[in-house]
């Protein structure tokens, strides 16, 4: 009995410092950021005059600048496209590698290598590859390859293209939406920024190897006996994957979604080094705006407001995962 309490006490003493440090340096600072976002702190020296939700209101206004609304739109575009392409590509590569092909080790490393590179390097690389060129310089990078291959129709401005795909208010469908009271959906802030596709390509190039590794590990965990049993039962390869293997590796998909999802919501360095804010903020993201307004504009209160909103969005993604995983642990 005494030994148990002593063990417990020692373990508590060992953990307590980190609890205190996390309480102060994580939760304490989150609290302070939340507090700062409600103040008028807009220059280097702090000014803690309370202004309520003013900073948040300004973020969601279109005048003087609609930058934050553009950022939210871009984040949604980026997150959806990046998750889908990374997972599809990662899973595809994992399934191919799982066929025990020759030189599997080489391929596995080849696909994993991009993950070892810093986003800054990836960004600069892909900026050069996707740099579109102009009529005076001629096509550059990938556009040049397209041209040489006779695929000239595929050439476009990549991340310099400011086009936003959205439902125009005066289009037929836009008028219909307005008619049924959903006119808010016909807005340039609810749409797809085409320039963002370039960033998605770079990010997918970097992270799909990582999803591949996760899936490969999961696939290897499935006993061969099971597949053989399926084959004996007369299932085709496609059926085995669809009905047996994919359902079995679903937890990995969830983990991959969480890991990639929070990366994509916080993406910063890739955008900074690759595209910058882009034409009319076509490739801008909240983290970049947060950095810009805080450290260039010294508008600390507004930067804090963006940080809190980002925290909320990430929490929306993470908390259901945490709840479900703790529940699973309790059951187990």
């Amino acid at each position, binding site marked *: 009995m005494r030994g148990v309490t002593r063990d417990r006490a020692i373990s508590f003493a060992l953990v307590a410092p980190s609890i205190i440090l996390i309480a102060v340096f994580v939760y304490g600072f989150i609290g302070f950021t939340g507090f700062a976002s409600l103040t008028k702190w807009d220059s280097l020296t702090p000014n803690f005059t309370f202004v309520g939700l003013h900073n948040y209101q300004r973020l969601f206004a279109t005048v003087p600048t*609609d930058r934050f609304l553009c950022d939210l739109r871009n984040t949604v575009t980026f997150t959806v496209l990046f998750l889908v392409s990374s997972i599809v590509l990662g899973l595809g590569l994992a399934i191919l590698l799982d066929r025990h092909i020759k030189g599997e080790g080489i391929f596995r490393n080849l696909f994993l290598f991009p993950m070892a590179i810093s986003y800054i390097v990836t960004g600069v690389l892909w900026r050069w590859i996707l740099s579109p060129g102009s009529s005076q310089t001629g096509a550059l990078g990938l556009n040049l390859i397209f041209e040489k291959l006779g695929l000239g129709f595929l050439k476009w401005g990549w991340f310099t293209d400011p086009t936003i795909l959205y439902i125009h208010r005066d289009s037929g469908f836009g008028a219909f939406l307005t008619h049924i009271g959903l006119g808010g959906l016909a807005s340039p802030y609810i749409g797809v920024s085409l320039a963002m596709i370039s960033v998605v390509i770079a990010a997918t190039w970097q992270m799909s190897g990582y999803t591949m590794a996760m899936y490969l590990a999961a696939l290897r965990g499935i006993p061969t006996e099971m597949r053989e049993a399926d084959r004996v039962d007369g299932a085709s390869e496609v059926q085995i994957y669809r009905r047996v293997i994919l359902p079995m590796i679903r937890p990995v998909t969830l983990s991959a979604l969480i890991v990639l999802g929070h990366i994509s919501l916080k993406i910063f360095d890739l955008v900074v080094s690759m595209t910058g804010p882009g034409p009319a903020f076509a490739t801008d993201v909240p983290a970049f705006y947060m950095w810009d307004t805080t450290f260039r504009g010294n508008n600390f209160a507004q930067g804090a407001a963006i940080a809190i909103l980002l925290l909320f969005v990430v929490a929306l993604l993470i908390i259901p995962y945490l709840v479900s995983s703790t529940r699973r642990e309790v059951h187990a």
Partner: protein
Amino acid sequence: MIRRLISVFSIVLVLCFSLALTTCGGGKSNKLEIFSWWTVGGEGEGLKALFDIYQKQYPGVQIVNATVAGGAGTNAKAVLATRLTGGKPPDAFQLHAGLEVEKYDPEKYILPLDSFYASEGLDKVFPKDLLSLLQYKGHYWGVPVNIHRANILWYNKKVFADAKLQPPTTWDEYFKVSKALKARKIIPLAFGSKDGYEAGHTFETVLISVLGPDGYKGLWTGATKWTDPKVADALNLLKKMLADTNTDNAALTWDGALGQYFITNKAAMMIMGDWVNGWFISQNFMDYGWECVPGPKIFDGLSDSFAVPKGAPDMQNAMNWLKVCGSQAGQAAFNPLKGSIAARTDVDPSLFNPYSQSAMKDWTSEPIVPSVVHGAAAKEKWATVYKDILATFATKGDVEAAQKALDQAATDNLAM
């Protein structure tokens, strides 16, 4: 038992904190700590030249070069603010001349230098416009060491000679030249907008040209309204100019655009500050000329200065440092290395390259206005919103919306 627990606890705690803590230098000695963000290239060399002069005049003082590297001083300023408010100031620190002083709450933290200006005779060697720019709440707060100019129209001499054109001095001429260049399949204006501030920079020079020095300065004090039709004129001019730039401008920085188009003779002009001059020299490209941006001749300037905080640890050393910064010898040593011109009007021009010599002549003769994008005309919060509005305008070209947004930004920032 309890004692053992406490010792385990405290050991872990000490280990954790010792990771987080950095040592702060202590001890009283004859020191001079200079805080700046001049770390690399000509800037770092220029600062070292100032240190050498100081060391010669005041031997025995140990100079501590406290630089914090990073983009236009953004990191340094954050560190500095913490040190000022935390009561651990350096002896002297770098400060953009102009409204930047506002954010340091100068009446509380910075030493006013009015008597220093009088005793050193600085009010006689700086241009009048600069002196009024340096004053905030009726006092001088810093000693400027260098001047950069933002509103220069750089042009490619070979392209202009081939097309038998003269560099434009009015906007009518500018667009005539543009048309002639386009007919020869040459891009009139090389432009890079990747960093998001370049449209704001170009627009600032157009605003100065259209509104004149007083009208432009009034925009930042509330004397000129942003709803003024002349602001719309300036926006329309900018829109027309940007329509004739390289289409891939969003992929390039200013130096990228120069490298891709200007020095390859595919583009004819660029509007940028005079740091371009150093870039041309580094690229060994000599076929360039410069003019003021079309319109009346006005000097759009930005300047670095040094200020001394109240309660500087070694006050006498700090004041001696300001003397070196403001002196003829100091400015003559620093500026040729930095690629800027001296704030004083009595420095020997023969020390400088041809561009700087012409800028020095303009410095003494033209009206001087502060640059907004480079932190001299308005506080940074306003300057950041301004640049964002212009970045959107450069793509969308909606004059009415941009003017409304600029007006709103002015209302927000003048009210406070």
